[in-house]
């Protein structure tokens, strides 16, 4: 069951990701990216990260990508123009990519022999007895407001800065 789920959604994710890259029209890429995110959310659930799955859909699919789509509509961006080129990319890009992918896969295989198996609901934390879910809002929230309080605060400041920056950038030029 788990394996089937994984295979289905992994396949969807990969196909959508490829679609993101190959589609010429931004909005198609955007929607494929939404597909990737949705399937990733399911995979998070499979990994027992309920909160993160929900956050993934709400934040990424529901907010960020909507913003993308919105901007694409606003700029009415058409299919991209095929001009401008870069030797670097042409001759270095593909081999590098393939090499990188192979390297990554190799390391994964070397460093993670299949001793840990992912089962649905199999995610338990150190201090908790089995059955009680560890990826729920409680655990994440507790960790967020105790161990990771400082990063949390810093992020809030970052967001404030981002808001101000966005406003400054996007506001009308005041003559």
């Amino acid at each position, binding site marked *: 069951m788990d394996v089937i789920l994984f295979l289905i959604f992994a396949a969807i994710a990969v196909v959508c990701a490829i679609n993101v890259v190959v589609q010429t029209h931004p909005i198609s890429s955007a929607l494929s990216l939404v597909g990737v995110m949705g399937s990733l959310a399911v995979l998070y659930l499979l990994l027992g990260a309920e909160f993160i799955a929900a956050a993934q859909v709400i934040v990424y699919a529901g907010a960020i990508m909507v913003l993308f789509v919105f901007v694409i509509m606003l700029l009415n961006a058409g299919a991209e123009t095929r001009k401008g080129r870069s030797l670097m990319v042409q001759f*270095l890009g593909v081999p590098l990519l393939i090499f990188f992918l192979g390297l990554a896969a190799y390391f994964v295989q070397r460093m993670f022999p299949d001793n840990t198996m992912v089962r649905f609901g199999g995610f338990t934390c150190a201090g908790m007895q089995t059955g009680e879910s560890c990826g729920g809002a409680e655990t994440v929230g507790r960790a967020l407001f105790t161990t990771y309080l400082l990063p949390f605060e810093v992020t809030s400041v970052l967001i404030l800065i981002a808001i101000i920056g966005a406003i400054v950038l996007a506001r009308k030029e005041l003559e």
Partner: protein
Amino acid sequence: MQLWLIPLLPLLGFLINGIFGRRFSKGLINTVAIGSVVFSFAWVLKTIAGMGDLNSSVTEHYFTWIQSGALNIGCDFFVDRLTIVMLLVVTGVGSLIHIYAIGYMAHEGGYYRFFAYLNLFMFFMLMLVLGANYLLLFVGWEGVGLCSYLLIGFYFDKQFATNAGNKAFIVNRIGDFGFALAMFLIFRNFQSLDFATVFHQAPGATEQTLTLIGLLLMVGACGKSAQIPLYVWLPDAMAGPTPVSALIHAATMVTAGVYMTARSWVIYTHAPGAMDVIAIIGVATAFFAATIGLAQNDIKKVFAYSTVSQLGYMFIGVGSGAFGAAIWHLVTHAFFKALLFLGAGSVIHALSGEQDLRNMGGLRTKIKFTCFSMIFAWWAISGIPPAAGFYSKDAILAAAYAHSPAIYWIGVFTAGLTAFYVSRAMFLTFFGEYRGHEHPHESPPVMWVPLVILGVLSLVGGAVFNVPEFLKYVFPAVVEPENHALVMISIAAGAIGILLAAWMYVWQPGMADKLAAAFSAPYKLIYSKYFVDEVYDATVVKPVVGGSRLLLWKGIDAGLIDGIVNGVGGRARDIGSAFRLLQSGNIRSYAAWVLFGGVAVIVVMGIAGGLR
């Protein structure tokens, strides 16, 4: 008992006036400035009332200021009888002078600035007096230095004023250097800077150490209290407004040195060598300053030199172990010298800016209140009983006689000189016929009322406040031989001085000029202040300036440091221009480079990690 309130009030006054003063009306500025000082005076009184019999000292700890290793400096305030005397003088005389300043500064620019500085000065002075350790005292010490600098240069659009301010500041730095060294030594030997601890351990220390400390402290005191060789800044400091001269350069700040030496009497009593040095310096200063004062024509300059010489007396007192007498003279001097300066200010104000004695005269009918109040100060400084100065100066001289007769005799002669030149100034100002062209007008009551109060104080102050009696338990007892001859002699000296002056400037006008012509060489010498400024300029200032210009500026700064900086910049530019070739401006090629780097990092890590 809320000692912190005493310095805090002037600080608040400073902040309020300094920040908002520009928009305030004069009335509001006065309210803030005077109110803060008067309130802190009232609080001082309340504090004293709350202390019952003043035999026990009070220490209040507020917070730990500096804590590093063995060094533990707390922000503590400390009150004993000596502090009380100083507090009363500072806040009392300070309030009077503040009030006087309302009238004197009425037509000056930068009104709010003036009062803000004045309040700031009060704050630092009170810190100096209240501080329970040398560092806190030093904070106040530097603070009053700063304020005196600011106030001397108050008329910053006048070149000589700013120069005088710089001079005062720099000369004081020399003294403070000594003070700082003294503090280092104290901490090194006693592992503390608190008065209590230091004085408790001081008797245990070796005599050389204490002597060294004492001498270094004395250097600081010389700087602050304008003793030889560091007195040169005080006469120039008269460039500031007259209330400043009265408050800072006569009544309070310049006596800080005396206070500090008296505060550390334990150290000095165990270092007789240092005490002798102090006494000698004191007597020398007293004498030289008095002689210079003989020939000055600027009324404020005269009083400035007399201040220096009176401070010399105080040092004599300290040096000959009569700390109580020194403080007593400090108090009385605060009264009559403040009065003299304020009176001088009133005269200047009356003559709308005229400061030269030669253009005055016969003013006694024109500005009565000033004249009569100043006459009391004249008695006091001339040491004629029953005025205040008589008692304190007499006590000092008696102690000096017990210490060494030579000092006593010079002191007496100086007293005569003092009486002479003060009388000269008085006669030239108030007697004879008027030689000026201005139309004198009496000052407003806000100015002469403080004069009158001070006048009364300088008349009866000595008899009423018997400071040595009050400080009996603070300082070691001094053996004062009941020697009426000495008293008579000093009174006689004063009287002779006055009579001589009267003879030369009232009964036989023109006699002074004849004498000056007769003894032209010594007259020139003292008229130009023994050329001390010129000597310092040649021996100290010029070499330092030249050295720093050539070596420090041209050599080290411009040559070495700038060279390094520019060199770094240049190399960076070269490297950058080398890397600029990579910058194709094509973002995707950058990305490719980034990918390349990432892969390289992974490979390296893999190899380093041994491909686990």
